[in-house]
């Protein structure tokens, strides 16, 4: 397969010269990064065969790096900046000037007190680690739940209930702005399509709701409605599944694209001349590491299939 694909991949690979190590995200990817990216990508893919040490290595690196990155980001943006830096800035405000808190101009001393109060609430959450049944975390939790509920109730109710339902039920079955068959370039622009779509929507909605109507006796009529409801739901789930497959294949293609990029001669282990060409394809990170991983997994499989050597027979008396 590699022999089949290699000439094509080689042709697609751009001729570039890459630095060995670079932290510039907008520049050419570095050689060290190419080897690490290829190693971890192929190690994760090796899990499709079976759980193995390469996958475990990649998994541990991933968890460790993600934890470090997210901890730093949240500390910087969630603790350092809103408490330390903000309070420092508020403290340095000229006398008589107001500071902005929640979009409102407020006295600096009041604003600092409110921020410190929020910080204290944050610390109270950690009391759970000292005593699980402590009263202290309940106060900040109660406030968080209250604020979250308020946010959800106002914005979400408006956008996902009032506007959405109002829009759907106020729409007529016929769109006067729709184009005629001769004018339309796409079928969605025609009035007939609009009416058909509206009918499908209304029927589907009513029947799907009817399927969950458990308080009424299941008469033949309700059973028919329920059946159409189930078909509607199945089409919906099928569409969602289709989109999910689309997403997953996109991820796979992106990894293939990335690996393809590192088959460029500049990333090869063999000597590369000043023009960036001359590196052997087989010594590039994806092919060399891929071959290495496959070989080691194959060796492991052979090892497992070999019958266990019987223990030497115990020497008898005499």
């Amino acid at each position, binding site marked *: *397969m590699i022999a*089949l*694909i290699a000439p*094509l*991949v080689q042709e*697609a690979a751009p001729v570039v010269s890459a630095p060995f190590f670079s932290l510039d*995200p*907008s520049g050419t990817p570095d050689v060290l990064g190419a080897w690490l990216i290829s190693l971890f990508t192929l190690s994760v*893919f090796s899990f*499709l*065969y079976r759980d193995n040490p390469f996958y475990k290595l990649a998994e541990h690196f991933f968890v460790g790096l993600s934890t470090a*990155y*997210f901890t730093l*980001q*949240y500390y910087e*943006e*969630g603790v350092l*900046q809103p408490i330390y*830096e*903000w309070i420092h*800035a508020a403290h340095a405000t000229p006398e008589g000037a107001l500071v*902005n*808190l*929640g*979009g409102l101009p407020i006295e600096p001393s009041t604003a600092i007190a409110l921020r410190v109060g929020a910080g204290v609430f944050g610390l109270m959450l950690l009391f759970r680690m000292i005593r699980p049944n402590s009263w202290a975390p309940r106060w900040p939790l109660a406030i968080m739940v209250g*604020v*979250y509920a308020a*946010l*959800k109730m*106002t*914005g*979400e109710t*408006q*956008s*996902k209930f009032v*506007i*959405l339902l109002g*829009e759907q039920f106020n729409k007529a079955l016929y769109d006067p702005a729709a184009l005629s068959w001769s004018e339309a370039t*796409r079928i*969605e622009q025609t009035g007939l399509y609009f009416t058909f779509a509206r009918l499908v929507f209304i029927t589907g909605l009513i029947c799907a709701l009817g399927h969950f109507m458990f308080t009424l006796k299941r008469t033949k009529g309700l059973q028919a409605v329920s059946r159409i409801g189930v078909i509607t739901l199945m089409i*919906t789930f099928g*569409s*969602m599944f*289709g*989109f*999910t*497959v*689309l*997403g997953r*294949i*996109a*991820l*796979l*293609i*992106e*990894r*293939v*694209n990335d690996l*393809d990029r590192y088959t460029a001669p500049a990333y090869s282990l063999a000597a590369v001349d000043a023009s960036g060409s001359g590196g052997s394809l087989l010594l590039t990170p994806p092919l060399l590491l891929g071959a290495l991983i496959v070989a080691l997994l194959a060796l492991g499989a052979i090892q497992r299939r070999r019958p266990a050597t019987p223990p030497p027979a115990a020497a008898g008396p005499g």
Partner: protein
Amino acid sequence: MATLGDLDRRWIFLAMGLLVVGMYAAGVKADLPSSPYVDSFYRTVEELPPRSIVLLSADFDPASAAELLPMYTGVIHHLLARKLRIVNTATWPAAPPYIRQEFARIAPLYGAVYGEDWVELGFKPGDDVAMGIIAQSLQNAFPTESRDGRSYADVPLLREVGAGMQGIDLLVTMSAGYPGILEWIAQVGGRYDVPIVCGTTAVQTPDIFAFYPRQVRGFLGAATGATQYLQLVDEVTTDAGVTAIKEENQRRMQVQSWGHVLIIGLIVLGNVIYFRGKRAPR
């Protein structure tokens, strides 16, 4: 048939892998006709007068970059080519490196000046609560910009953005999940008079149809939407980078199509095996 029923699933993984690598290496491109949702996204940006301010939120991470990064890049090109100004935010912690990387590359192509034509505010933790705060008061959410640490009032572009989304003419989000477009709709669309457009991952796309066109003016659904949008953007920009991304996406779409054909074939085959197994005498 009985043998196929017991087929090790690893053969399917291998088949998909070989198909994707083979089709990718073949390099055939697919030219896609644009959908009304993508057209509407494009038109919404085109209709903004020059110098309008766009809040561009990067709500994705490396796991969804395969779908969202090409459209994010396309959006930056489109906005800067139209001489629109961009305020960047992120509600996903892994997004800021993408913002920095893309703007470092694209902004100089259009002569965009940092602080006047675009600004980077960084990541704001707190999910939809953070979105609520951003909408309520951008200055309160980001007292300083994130690249040089200049205070809000010292950045000319930010001085034009007031509380309650004042000064913001359009909200664009590249949404990978939670928090994302659904939360922006609730926190901004439901409260302020700001049009919203978005790019979404394939998994999230079916959720957005219901909000189109009133609450979401247009959207780019997954890799398909990204390719359609890049085809449109490529016509208005002269940068070779856009053409390269567009062609790369067109190439990916061809592979996508064959991947789908394989999946559909496997579903049909699975059903045939299932129903034959049911009919077979026990």
